[in-house]
């Protein structure tokens, strides 16, 4: 763990300390002794460089010390998705360094701004951490390798073409002479290449594709990994916040007298829609003080709304709303009336909260000419710019120290908590750590939008669908995120997985109606697809049932000619024991989707008790991300995505009453725990091709449909709205 010690020594000279790291002795972990870790790279508990430079840099990405220890900078977020391991693996495919001597740290967003975006984009969203980095980091690694080779060739006065690099050593092939990277780095840093070397094509990969343990795991089993909430800045005070219970409402006023003379209170900070209390000593003190205040709010007309009303309005909008057409093929209006049999169904999905385990928080130290921020963010560059604006500084004056993110799922790139922390720091003139309570985190999420989706299908005499019309009413994430819809008005998130559905049905129309309430919405793991795949894969099952066909075989027919889809569908069916008999009360369901360029098919096996309790026993997933960098983390992502989607399917809903989100903590916003977790088997089957797929999101969309279809198989009851716990299934099995 040389890397950790180096980083901590550097940090200890600085004024901003994470004191617990040293107090805990967390750096002492001896991962090298574990066999699996012998060949592993490492990362420090607080993996950012305050100076954002090293004396032994080859370039902004790579530093090589004389002792051959190698620093690789990682430019995106680590929120559990494993990209902090996988992206440097791609760089090292080209660099050819000895991975066991590699340590990884975060690239600095500040340096990225100052040095002409040398790190490119810094976001981790849309399952793009790997595919969005691949060409860039391969090029960075290849350039560094060629410069190391050029430095060796110069030293030996031989043509560079006679030299090769491997395992942190350059070898002159004819003579067998060798030089270590550590001996060459200083010269290599001075070399400019005439042209950029070609990067490897996938058939040339030797390191990409190997299962490698994650660099952050050892730090996450001894408490030393630093999340944003763990920041400890000298002189820091703690802040708790209450935001208007009705999202979008405003603060009218607050009587501060209950806190007059209370010990340790540093300030009461009023914002447009929130009140915060800052206190010395502990977050608890701030939280308890805040609880003594009773702010008055102007909640507006939204204060009279509730979920039942929203549902009525969304259902009405299926006919009355202004629909934008996303896909129109054949002639649905002609084909539907002529069908031998028609089917119609409406599917409903509720608002959902992201609820990462680490609630929203940010620590800021605001000086007249410099702002330091400690936060776990999915987009350090974008949040740096938002913070600069809030602080009235230039982005170059903002130093965002990205921390390990305690769960993101799309929530942690809005910067709302950062902007609040800056407002509090401005008011109290001290470094501030702001933490949202779990209740604030749930109720003031930017939610997964609710949606109501109607399907109409016409079946021919052979039972096969020849026409379908799909219309969805949903809140708009792109509009919430400040993006514009295209001129045709189609919300590309609302129609995700609907307009692009792969089924060969001659007459297909997909439309959307954008409809929002006062609840803010945002990106939530597999945006759009996470609700739409439940709906469309359930409706395909309805077509199968109505025509007396096996749901798997119907899908096979509708996917005829699409070899990649069939491959994952067949794999899931085969490994998931599709068609094998099950006892009464049990059933299997199947679902498939394309998301972020990857394919995922899942077979779920459920038991429904006579009391109507649903237990998901087993899930088999087949996953084609086109290319795989680290099969270990890819499998972990599918496993986790299935649990994430299963929580939503079984329990997930945010109700609204009097304009207020009802569910607030884990007693009412229920989560899948070990007792409900199915056995999961993941089969990774990359098919190659031009584009790389994502891994973080595609595992989430299919599970709700697979489980609902399994419940139908077990009970004959069709689930057309989520969550499943709201359906009475007693006596149906």
């Amino acid at each position, binding site marked *: 763990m040389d890397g950790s010690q180096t980083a901590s020594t550097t940090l200890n000279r600085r004024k901003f300390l994470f004191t617990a790291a040293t107090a805990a002795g967390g750096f002492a972990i001896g991962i090298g002794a574990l066999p699996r870790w012998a060949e592993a790279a490492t990362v420090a508990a607080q993996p950012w460089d305050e100076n954002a430079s090293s004396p032994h840099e080859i370039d902004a990405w790579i530093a090589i010390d004389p002792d051959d220890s190698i620093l690789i900078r990682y430019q995106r977020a680590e929120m559990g998705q494993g990209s902090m391991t996988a992206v440097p693996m791609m760089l090292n495919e080209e660099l050819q360094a000895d991975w066991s001597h590699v340590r990884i740290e975060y690239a600095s967003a500040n340096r990225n701004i100052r040095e002409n975006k040398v790190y490119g984009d810094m976001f981790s969203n849309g399952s793009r951490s790997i595919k969005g980095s691949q060409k860039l980091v391969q090029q960075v690694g290849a350039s560094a390798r060629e410069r190391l080779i050029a430095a060796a060739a110069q030293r030996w006065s031989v043509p560079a073409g006679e030299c090769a690099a491997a395992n942190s050593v350059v070898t002159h092939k004819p003579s067998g002479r060798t030089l270590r990277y550590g001996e060459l780095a200083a010269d290599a840093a001075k070399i400019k290449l005439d042209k950029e070397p070609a990067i490897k094509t996938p058939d040339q990969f030797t390191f990409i594709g190997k299962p490698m343990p994650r660099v952050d795991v050892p730090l996450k089993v001894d408490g030393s990994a630093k999340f944003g909430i763990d920041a400890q800045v000298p002189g820091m005070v703690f802040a708790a916040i209450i935001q208007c219970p009705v999202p979008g409402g405003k603060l009218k006023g607050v009587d501060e007298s209950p806190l007059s003379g209370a010990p340790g209170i540093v300030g009461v900070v009023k914002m447009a829609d929130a009140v915060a209390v800052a206190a010395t000593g502990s977050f*608890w003190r701030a939280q*308890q003080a805040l609880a003594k205040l009773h702010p008055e709010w102007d909640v507006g007309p939204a204060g009279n709304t509730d979920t039942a009303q929203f549902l009525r309005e969304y259902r009405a909008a299926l006919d009355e709303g202004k629909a934008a057409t996303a896909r129109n093929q054949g002639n649905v209006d002609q084909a539907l009336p002529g069908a031998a049999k028609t089917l119609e169904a409406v599917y409903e999905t509720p608002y959902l909260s992201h609820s990462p385990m680490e609630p929203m928080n940010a620590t800021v130290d605001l000086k007249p000419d410099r702002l330091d921020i400690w936060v776990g963010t999915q987009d350090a560059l974008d949040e740096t710019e938002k913070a600069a604006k809030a602080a009235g500084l230039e982005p170059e004056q903002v130093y965002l120290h990205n921390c390990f993110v305690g769960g993101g799922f799309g929530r942690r790139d809005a910067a709302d908590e950062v902007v609040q922390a800056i407002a509090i720091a401005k008011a109290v003139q001290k470094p501030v750590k702001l933490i949202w309570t779990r209740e604030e985190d749930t109720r003031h999420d930017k939610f997964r939008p609710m949606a109501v989706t109607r399907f109409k299908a016409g079946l021919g005499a052979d039972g096969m669908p020849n026409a379908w019309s799909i219309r969805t009413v949903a809140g708009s994430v792109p509009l919430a995120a400040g993006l514009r819809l295209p001129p045709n008005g189609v919300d590309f998130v609302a129609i995700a997985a609907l307009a692009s559905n792969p089924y060969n049905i001659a007459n297909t129309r997909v439309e959307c109606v954008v409809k929002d309430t006062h609840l803010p919405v945002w990106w939530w793991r597999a945006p759009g697809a996470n609700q739409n795949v439940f709906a469309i894969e359930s409706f395909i099952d309805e077509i199968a049932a109505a025509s007396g066909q096996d749901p798997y075989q119907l899908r096979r027919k509708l996917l005829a000619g699409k070899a990649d889809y069939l491959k994952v569908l067949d794999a899931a069916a085969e490994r998931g024991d599709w068609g094998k008999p099950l006892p009464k009360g049990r059933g299997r369901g199947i679902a498939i989707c394309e998301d972020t360029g990857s394919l995922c098919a899942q077979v779920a096996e459920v038991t429904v008790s006579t009391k109507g309790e649903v237990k998901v026993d087993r899930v088999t997933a087949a996953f084609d991300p086109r290319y795989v960098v680290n099969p270990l983390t890819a499998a972990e992502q599918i496993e986790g995505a299935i649990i994430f989607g299963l929580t939503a399917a079984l329990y997930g809903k945010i109700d609204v009453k009097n304009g207020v989100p009802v569910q607030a903590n884990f007693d009412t916003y229920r989560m899948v725990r070990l007792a409900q977790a199915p056995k999961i088997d993941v089969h990774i089957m990359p098919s190659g091709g031009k584009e790389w797929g994502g891994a973080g999101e595609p595992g989430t969309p299919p599970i709700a449909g697979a489980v609902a279809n399994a419940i139908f198989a077990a009970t004959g009851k069709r689930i057309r709205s989520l969550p499943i716990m709201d359906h009475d299934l007693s006596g149906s099995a």
Partner: protein
Amino acid sequence: MVTITVNGTQHQLDLEPDTPLLWALRDVVGLTGTKYGCGIAQCGACTVHINGEAMRSCSVPIALLDGATITTIEGLSPGGRHPVQEAWIAEDVPQCGYCQSGQIMATVAFLKDHPNPTDADIDSNITNICRCGTYERLRRAIHRAAELMKA
């Protein structure tokens, strides 16, 4: 003033007596491996050992702890080498990692009472929430830890 011993070191806490142990550990003692997740003993991210028993520290006021001995994730073993930690590494359990201190502390206490745990034992005793959904590997790691502890 409340005196507690945390990972072998005595600390005097000059805090409101209703302050939960969680915030005393994080904000005063300076040990941040113990996490805040819910504040109502639902999620288990704050699990520590109080006099040898696994407890959710967000819901234990320090007033009840004068003279108590506390073990946090940082003090579980020298160098982070407890068999449960080794099993966690071997199974590559953590994703975001935020809940894992609590999962590990809960498992260490659980295995003392259940040296040969069945899946049913695990399900009914390890109730901590993992939002990343690491349960498949977590379950394997608990079984592996049980084996390691026998060795």
